[in-house]
């Protein structure tokens, strides 16, 4: 086994290109592991963990490209292949039109530019966000690892200049019908959404879409906005904008439960308008709820989506009745599924790509079924999962958490990690049911159902060899208009033997029934 590194000084490529190259390298004969990364301290730490941090790599600066290969075959051939792959990317670009090197150059070339999407490494992201705001661009800041100080300063500037600063860590927005980053195809309609939770925006907007109701805007603020240290600057500004927007007839607000004073601030703003406003502070303290005729507090994304749909004109019954009816159907389904389980199959496992969906499921399990479910992203730290890589008892894992995504694509883009975990869970004889979310739409994997469906087939075969059957449960966050298609995605999952529910909440209930009496 040899480990060899090549350092290329002052050569920069974006992380996705580098990950793709690294992935190609690991496919070469003899290669055990490979990394192609910029020489930042955090990347060096990753190299160290994988035993790839050679003395040369230690000396690399953040402006240097580090190619590291561990192989029992021809290491030099693998390193040469890295060169070829990196060059291939460059020639693919060279045929293209001129690409500006700075935001300034881009704006000069596109006079009517009005939105910027920033996804560069966090330590550079704030500077570029400033560039964009100062040039009058609204910003979707996808990058993480932006300091609180920077976030506050950027948001105050944005607020004072009538601009949106969505993020950091904002992965979803729909502005004037344009789906930015991870978002679904939702028709135009009367509901305006502000969400401090990315998949929360996707789940509620697709529930609207599934019920034939459209939206004006879907504004994601980033998960930290409603934390005290940020003070909800963008959340409040976005509410104001929708309150002033004549096209928005119904407002839908989504967030994980904020601190009481933050919740109060949100309600204070809500009360400044008479527009019907659905407030979904997922599993929040009911005591923080303000009662007013036009304010509709709810605790799940499902209820939020359905209620906003009804207020927006959907011809559906009262959402509570819809959910009650659906729950009856789920109970019936559960009765047919449960007999397939053996006595010692008593635990549920949740494998999530969407953080807010993971959160909603935990709220439902706790509040409706009294289940104690461990997680790497728990509602309460007493339910901390000791090792995120090792499931125990009832537990669910948010695979979109940073611990899984450093140096690796997000599970909404790349299914590999979830597939491996799913097969691992299937080998556990104590597992009764495995739940996973499938998020489609722009930005997501082009056909997640096909890959996850195959994985489910394999997992069921594994269990069958062991004389067990595992119940697979899922829901699809998406619409018919999404590139992957809601029906097609659902059918693919069903044909693999997955029980597909209408919402993440419904799926959570079904999986809960598999492990409760």
């Amino acid at each position: 086994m040899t480990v060899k590194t090549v350092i290329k000084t002052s050569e920069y490529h974006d992380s996705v290109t580098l990950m793709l190259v690294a992935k190609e390298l690991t496919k070469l004969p003899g290669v055990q592991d490979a990394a192609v990364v910029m020489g930042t301290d955090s990347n060096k730490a990753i190299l160290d963990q994988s035993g790839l941090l050679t003395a040369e790599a230690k000396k690399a600066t953040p402006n240097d490209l580090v190619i590291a290969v561990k192989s029992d075959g021809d290491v030099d051939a693998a390193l040469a292949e890295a060169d070829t792959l990196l060059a291939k990317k460059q020639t693919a670009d060279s045929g293209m039109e001129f690409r500006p090197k700075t935001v300034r150059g881009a704006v000069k070339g596109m006079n009517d530019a009005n939105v910027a999407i920033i996804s560069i490494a966090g330590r550079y992201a704030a500077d570029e966000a400033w560039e964009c705001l100062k040039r009058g661009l609204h910003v979707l800041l996808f990058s993480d690892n932006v300091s609180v100080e920077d976030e506050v300063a950027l948001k105050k500037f944005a607020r004072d200049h009538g601009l949106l600063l969505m993020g950091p860590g904002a992965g979803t927005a729909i502005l004037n019908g344009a789906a930015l980053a991870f978002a679904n195809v939702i028709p135009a309609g009367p509901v305006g959404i502000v969400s401090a939770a990315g998949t929360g925006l996707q789940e509620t907007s697709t529930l609207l879409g599934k019920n034939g109701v459209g939206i004006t805007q879907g504004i994601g603020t980033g998960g930290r906005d409603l934390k005290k240290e940020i003070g909800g600057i963008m959340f409040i500004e976005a509410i104001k904008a929708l309150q002033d927007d004549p096209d928005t007839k119904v407002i839908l607000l989504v967030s994980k439960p904020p601190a009481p004073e933050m919740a109060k601030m949100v309600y204070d703003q809500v009360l400044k308008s008479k527009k019907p406003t659905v407030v979904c502070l997922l599993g929040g303290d009911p005591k923080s709820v303000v009662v007013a005729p036009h304010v509709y507090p709810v605790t799940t994304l499902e209820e939020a989506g359905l209620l906003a749909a009804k207020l927006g004109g959907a011809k559906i019954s009262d959402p509570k009745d819809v959910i009650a009816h659906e729950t009856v159907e789920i109970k019936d389904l559960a009765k047919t599924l449960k007999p397939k389980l053996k006595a010692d199959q008593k635990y549920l496992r949740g494998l999530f790509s969407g953080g807010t969906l993971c959160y909603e499921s935990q709220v439902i399990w706790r509040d409706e079924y009294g289940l104690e479910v461990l997680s790497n992203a728990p509602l309460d730290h007493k339910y901390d999962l000791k090792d995120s890589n090792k499931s125990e008892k009832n537990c669910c894992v948010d695979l979109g958490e940073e611990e899984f995504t450093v140096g690796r694509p997000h599970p909404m883009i790349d299914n590999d990690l979830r597939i491996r975990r799913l097969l691992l869970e299937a080998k556990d004889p104590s597992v009764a049911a495995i739940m996973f979310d499938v998020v489609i739409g722009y930005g997501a994997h082009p056909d997640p159902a096909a890959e996850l469906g195959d994985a489910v087939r394999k997992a069921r075969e594994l269990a069958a060899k062991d004389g067990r059957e595992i119940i697979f449960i899922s829901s699809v966050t998406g619409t018919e208009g999404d590139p992957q298609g809601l029906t097609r995605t659902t059918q693919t999952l069903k044909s693999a033997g997955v029980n597909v529910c209408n919402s993440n909440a419904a799926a959570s209930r079904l999986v809960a029934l598999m492990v409760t009496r």
Partner: protein
Amino acid sequence: MSPKINDLFGKPINVVNVGLASMAQPMRDQNIPVVDVDWQPPKEGIVRLHMTKSGVDIDAANAEVCKRIKAARPVLVGMGKAKDVIPGYHDHLILHAGPPITWERMCGPQRAAVIGALVYEGMAKDENEAENMAASGKVEFAPCHHYHSVGPMAGVISPSMPVFIIENKAFGNKAFCTQNEGLGKVLRYGGLGPDVYARLKWMETELYPTLNRALESIPDGIDIKALISQALHMGDECHNRNRAATSLFLRAIGPALARTNKDNEVLAKVIEFIDKNDHFFLNLSMPAGKAALEPAEGVEGSTILTVMARNGTDFGIRMAGMPDKWFTAPAGMVQGLYFPGFSEEDANPDIGDSTITETAGYGGFAMAAAPAIVKFVGGAPSDAIASTMEMYEITFDEHDGFSIPSLNFRGTPLGIDVRKVMETGILPKINTGISHKKPGVGGIGAGILRAPESCFRDAFEAFRKTC
């Protein structure tokens, strides 16, 4: 009314994507216009400068500098001999291109031009004596730039040489430059020999009086800015291509030449000389740039260049905010196309004051306007456009007087901002001629190169620490 988030609602979304290419794909799939920024991390250790230590808003200072450059109105108002018209000139002064330099450090072609000028002036009887004289310290050397002047290539100006007088009518300042000799074996490229001196003498005794008489009969002079502006629409960038501008100049001065002429054969020779020298206008385009830039010198807190110049040994820059300080680095080698029989083996490093054109917002920065010479930048018109587009990244402004047809008449990139050069790592791209490194041979080709980085880094650091 102050802007509101709601102003965005209902408008078409146009996206700038900074980072992952995969973020732009959904936009393209939805037919939403998106520009991908080819983003690079900033150079390690380069901070973003917004204010000077003394509290001057650098952007505001730079805006003032660009405003002055744009407002300039360089007009050819007359001619005269260097010693008579350049303020402060004296009998033993020889001006040269680029930053200050001693005889010892002068490159071959610049030494040759000094030697040739001393012989031409009759200050030395031959080239040997001239060389001894130049080395003896009896001759004072100074950059053209210290005397409101500019000189192409070796850029040598000696006392009897006739110079064009360009007046910036908006500010009243003047700039000076000699008459252009043509290409090949000529003094400014370091060419020496009887034919070189004979040509210089003819330029002094026939060309100059003829042009000068004509100019004296044009009361308002000839608007050089207008000629540059038109020539940019006719395939010139007014540094490495001056064919259209030279023709325009002949048209502008033609009637006056005819009216003030004393001898038709002399007139014919003058017209022939100008017609056969596509670069005749360069020596008007350059002092026009100098005249436009000088009023910007001394604007406190500005990081815009007012001078970029080379002497074949050093490349030097000066910033508006630190107007007297030269920042230098070794002059680079030109990537060039060569006249038959010559190659890069023969080439002298980068030389000349002609980079005043890029500094003033045309020349190499307007490459997209000059499709006929795209072979210097790669061969295709798209390469020329990319070359100009890149320069917008390091300039503070766009010229409202000069525009580029192929870019929908967008203004040329104006005002090289040292901050932007350092932040982006993009160095100014320069068009230039190439001298033979041996004294006496002359011009051997033309090409392009980038300015050296270290003088920009030094300027950036000095500005950061002292301003």
